[in-house]
């Protein structure tokens, strides 16, 4: 296998700079981006240029892609639908409840969403690389139980270290099975979801864990602390989002993730080390779960064996709402963040308005289905037809 650096850079930057420079003739044809993707990238690039050229009006037109030669409202909806939905939901809730639009409420929703959010960041990277990670729910339970249980036994810092090692070990198993052995990621991580849950129960013997002295531990900082009036979980969430956004779009590793997710065989022919890239994507996911576990343990100051049960689906929901394709190759950290916030604010808004829980389930379902519909609609170029 040839050294991957040059060719992968060429391949993926080709995707990103398609409009600025023609694809190099020397690049392998099958390694190039698929035409639809390329087209949308071109439109995006033109939009970016328009932003640079004009003021707010141009910025808005660029955001919606109004100047694009193949403009259609379907595309606008599909591309920025999540943002529109977010704005509509926020305006609606603000009008309906006078409690909604307040610093305290926003801060509390952001804090509540940060656990799901931090996990969703890591899983977004796995999803972009064309795989799934359903094991994050159990991994969260495991890491949280570990960090909380060991907190009183060996101290906060060693407890966090042990939990980190355990989480990364889970990630490494996922990475090995999916990356090296090339097993189907859905099956592997679904299995790991059960296996890690079982292991958590064996470790804890079914008992809940609690931190005895809650007021005197610096561990409280991660879930309950504040820096300059902003809760630490929010800062961790946004900080990680910025770092991972940079990893995805500013590093070779990030470009390889996109390349593998777009067309794994093509990426490999062009010399990308698929094994290594997939393995690291699962390590990143596990690392994010560990961060979430530290926030969770610190926020609750205790842990149930099944505390993360069902979180894998909430995480996946946020990512889908954020528009990442489950088939891989596309997705944005920033949109996942909006997806997480949208679901968080919807839950909060419905609670504030006094709707019962089944309404929340129903609305969440509708939001997810509409998000998927818009996504598919964008690929087909039309919303109300099963054909492209």
């Amino acid at each position: 296998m040839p050294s991957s650096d040059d060719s992968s850079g060429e391949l993926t930057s080709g995707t990103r700079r398609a409009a600025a420079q023609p694809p190099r003739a020397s690049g392998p044809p099958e390694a190039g981006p698929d035409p639809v993707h390329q087209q949308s990238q071109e439109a995006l690039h033109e939009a970016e240029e328009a932003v640079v050229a004009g003021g707010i009006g141009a910025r808005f037109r660029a955001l919606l892609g109004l100047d694009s030669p193949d403009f259609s409202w379907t595309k606008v909806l599909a591309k920025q639908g999540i943002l529109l939905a977010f704005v509509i939901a926020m305006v609606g809730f603000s009008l309906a409840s006078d409690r909604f639009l307040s610093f305290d409420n926003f801060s509390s929703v952001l804090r509540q969403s940060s656990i799901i959010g931090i996990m969703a960041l890591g899983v977004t990277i796995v999803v972009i690389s064309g795989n799934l990670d359903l094991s994050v729910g159990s991994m969260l339970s495991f890491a949280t139980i570990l960090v909380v249980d060991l907190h009183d036994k060996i101290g906060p810092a060693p407890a966090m270290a042990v939990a980190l090692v355990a989480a990364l070990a889970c990630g490494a198993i996922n990475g090995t099975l999916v990356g090296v052995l090339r097993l189907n990621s859905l099956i592997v991580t679904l299995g790991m979801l059960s296996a890690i849950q079982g292991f958590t129960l064996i470790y804890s013997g079914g008992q809940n864990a609690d931190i005895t002295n809650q007021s005197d531990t610096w561990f409280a900082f991660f879930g309950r602390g504040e820096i300059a009036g902003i809760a630490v979980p929010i800062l961790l969430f946004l900080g990680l989002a910025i770092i991972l956004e940079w990893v995805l779009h500013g590093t070779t590793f990030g470009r390889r993730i996109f390349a593998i997710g777009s067309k794994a065989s093509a990426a490999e022919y062009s010399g990308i080390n698929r094994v290594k890239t997939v393995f690291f994507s699962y390590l990143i996911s596990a690392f994010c779960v560990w961060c979430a576990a530290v926030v969770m343990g610190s926020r609750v100051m205790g842990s149930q064996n099944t505390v993360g049960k069902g979180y894998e689906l909430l995480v996946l929901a946020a990512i889908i709402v954020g528009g990442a394709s489950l088939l891989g190759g596309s997705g944005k950290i920033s949109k996942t963040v909006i997806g997480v916030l949208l679901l968080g604010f919807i839950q909060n808004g419905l609670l504030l308005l006094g709707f019962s829980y089944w309404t929340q389930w129903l609305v969440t379902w509708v939001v997810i289905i509409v998000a998927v519909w818009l996504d598919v609609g964008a690929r087909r170029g039309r919303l109300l037809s099963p054909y492209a």
Partner: protein
Amino acid sequence: MLSQPTSKLARTVVRAVAGLLPAALVATAVAQEDEVITIGITQNNVGIDSYQTTYEQAFIEAANNNPEVEAIVLDAQGDVEKQINQMRDLIQQDVDAIIIWPTQGKAVVPVVRQAERAGIPVIVTNSQIAEEGQQFIASFSGPDNITQGIYSAEIMCDRFTEMGIEDEAVIVQIAGMPGYTTAIERAQGFEERLPEVCPNVELIETQPGDWNREKSQTVMETFLTKYDDIDGVYSGDDNMGVGALNAAKAAGRADEIIFVGATNFAVGYEAMGRGEYWGSIYQSPVEDARNALRTAVAVVKGEDVPKSNYFDTPKITQENMDQYTKPVF
């Protein structure tokens, strides 16, 4: 804090394997010492929480301490299908009685009926099965969730009366997992009793906390945003109650709120000791397990057993907590 899982697990596995032995083998064993009562139990989901884990340990211990009893201990791991198969296995082995902790109140009714047809008395433990299955069971052994809800309402009302705010207090409720019988009954008992004892206390909103402390904390944070005045929080168990307490402490409003739960957990007991949490209902998994075994033995011996054989779940508050040991879960 944590038990020794390996030995417990090993024992469970051994017993589970024993439970799978061919029926003929067990039948021979029973024939040889016919004074032994064979009781099979299929539990809901051991290990999912401390309560069920302690229940199993207590049950095995109680069975070991009773020379008349040979127990076959099985666990359905929360899986209805698995529980139905375990019931069929136990019927096949022709045990003297079957104790079932239903994974799902409705789905197990047909197989309970099958056991009754085969002449094996069925004792339901901890959580009730559906109404249509009642005719097929010998007895129900467990806590009375409705009584627990009623007691919680009384604890709450008594406390408001002591504080002199029984005519103006407003409270919120954080209920258990929607659709779960325990959650429904605890809410029902509370909601029915409260207007009887404290007619002017208003329950302004109920939302589920899914038995999850983090979820409950999130729900309470929203309640605190929504309502400027909350005097009491009733939660389906102390785990959720402590989640609500966490939220109120973070908002600096814990001092003005009375927290009452429907089952006392160790975290709730400790919070009561710190004076942050007012009261709850003392439900012992050990007593739950022993009561189930006692009921089953009594049924096999043909004694007169009430259809609902509840064990006692007393009120516990900051005032009388020294009479009770800290819950194991």
